[in-house]
């Protein structure tokens, strides 16, 4: 059983300089309450691992705009001019990773695998300086696991065991990032009594979740 905590208590756990996974795809399926509170708390030097930079006011955007981010690891930054500007100004380091490689590297970290062998990126800038491995006559890029100190998860429903469900395309990176954070914090839309979520409907077992954010009263 988990006692639900407040957003403020969660934010207090996350120090400056932390490596943080943030779920969401163009801001859909992002724990927006945690993002807003982190930005308001003025965190510094965060490394954010997130699919995309979304827009200045969605997804990871508010953290970028508030100057909380030192490094961005993700696959797409095309519609966030604030991030582009900070990148060109040398304020934020950007590491671009193909989306399929990004999610599989996160999964590898969470599932105890040594890395990812993928054909994606071979023969492109992405492959530069990286080892390749030959398997059964085919060449693959070896990409290392990607871990984080914290994984911030947006869930649809949650129970007090920490079991999570997601809704439609707000699922995206959530179930994978929930595997790979040293500390996993879930921000659900609702908390329901234990036993209410059918076992087959659970997408993230509660054993992976460390803290659950309670909704404002």
């Amino acid at each position, binding site marked *: 059983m988990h006692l639900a905590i407040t957003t403020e208590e969660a934010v207090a756990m996350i120090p400056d300089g932390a490596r943080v996974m943030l779920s969401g*795809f163009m801001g*859909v399926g992002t724990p927006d309450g945690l993002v807003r509170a982190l930005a308001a708390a003025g965190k510094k030097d965060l490394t954010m691992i997130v699919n995309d930079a979304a827009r200045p006011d969605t997804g990871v955007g508010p953290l970028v705009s508030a100057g909380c981010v030192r490094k961005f690891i*993700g696959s797409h*930054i095309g519609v966030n001019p604030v991030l582009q500007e900070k990148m060109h100004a040398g304020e934020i380091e950007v590491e671009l990773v193909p*989306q399929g490689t990004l999610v*599989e590297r996160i999964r590898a970290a969470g599932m105890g695998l040594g890395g990812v062998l993928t054909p994606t990126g071979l*023969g492109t800038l992405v492959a530069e300086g990286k080892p390749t491995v030959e398997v059964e006559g085919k060449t693959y890029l070896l990409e290392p696991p990607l871990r984080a100190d914290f994984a911030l998860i947006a869930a649809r429903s949650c129970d007090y065991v920490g079991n999570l469900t997601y809704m439609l*395309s707000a*699922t*995206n990176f959530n179930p994978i990032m929930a595997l790979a954070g040293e500390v996993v914090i879930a921000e659900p839309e609702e908390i329901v009594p234990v036993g209410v979520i059918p076992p087959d409907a659970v997408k993230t077992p509660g054993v992976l979740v460390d803290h659950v954010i309670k909704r404002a009263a």
Partner: protein
Amino acid sequence: MKDIQIMDPREIIARRVSLEIRPKMLVNLGIGIPTLVSDHLDESMGVFFQSENGVVGLGHRPPEGMTDRHLTDAGGSFTSAVPGASIIDSAFSFGLIRGGHLDLTVLGGLQVDAQGHLANWMIPGVFVPGMGGAMDLVTGARKVIVAMIHSTKGKSKIVQECNLPVTSQRRVDLIVTEKAVIQPRDDGLHLLETGPGISVAEVEADTEAQLIIEGDIPEMDLSRTT
């Protein structure tokens, strides 16, 4: 399906690409012109559209007031789900793409070269949107079609060799512009069709890359239905 009176270059491209789609295919459409392709398909074909963010069975954008923030496409826009749609997480979504389960992807391009290499994810120093899912799509889909306007600012986007960073070492299967249908093969770029009202000579003049032209080259038949 839309009416066949098509004059807009983007609609010519979308209509021509739609003729490549077979019933029951699983298809991923990129942002921009590729998105228009679905308008030219009959729903009875049972084609399923997948988006990188994990929707298998994307429908049209719902009417105002019937949108839901939990159901969006890869551009983050509101969408709907067709009957029989399913939701998968991002790892599964890219497993479908990389694992050869995606029959076709249609993407925009900045350049395609004589080897069939596509560049579509950055212009160094100018525009760095990132590759998103493009590298996985071009590497993993069973068939890759590049759908793009033939030239930009008077400069051909079909070049002898890409000077922009390529998206994959995989050769794309077909290039469709408003002026030409071009197929990259081992020996180079074969001109298969010309655009409506465009001559072979015009295509050659407007294309930087050397084209291989064998026999009579027909004009795109956009009155055809799949």
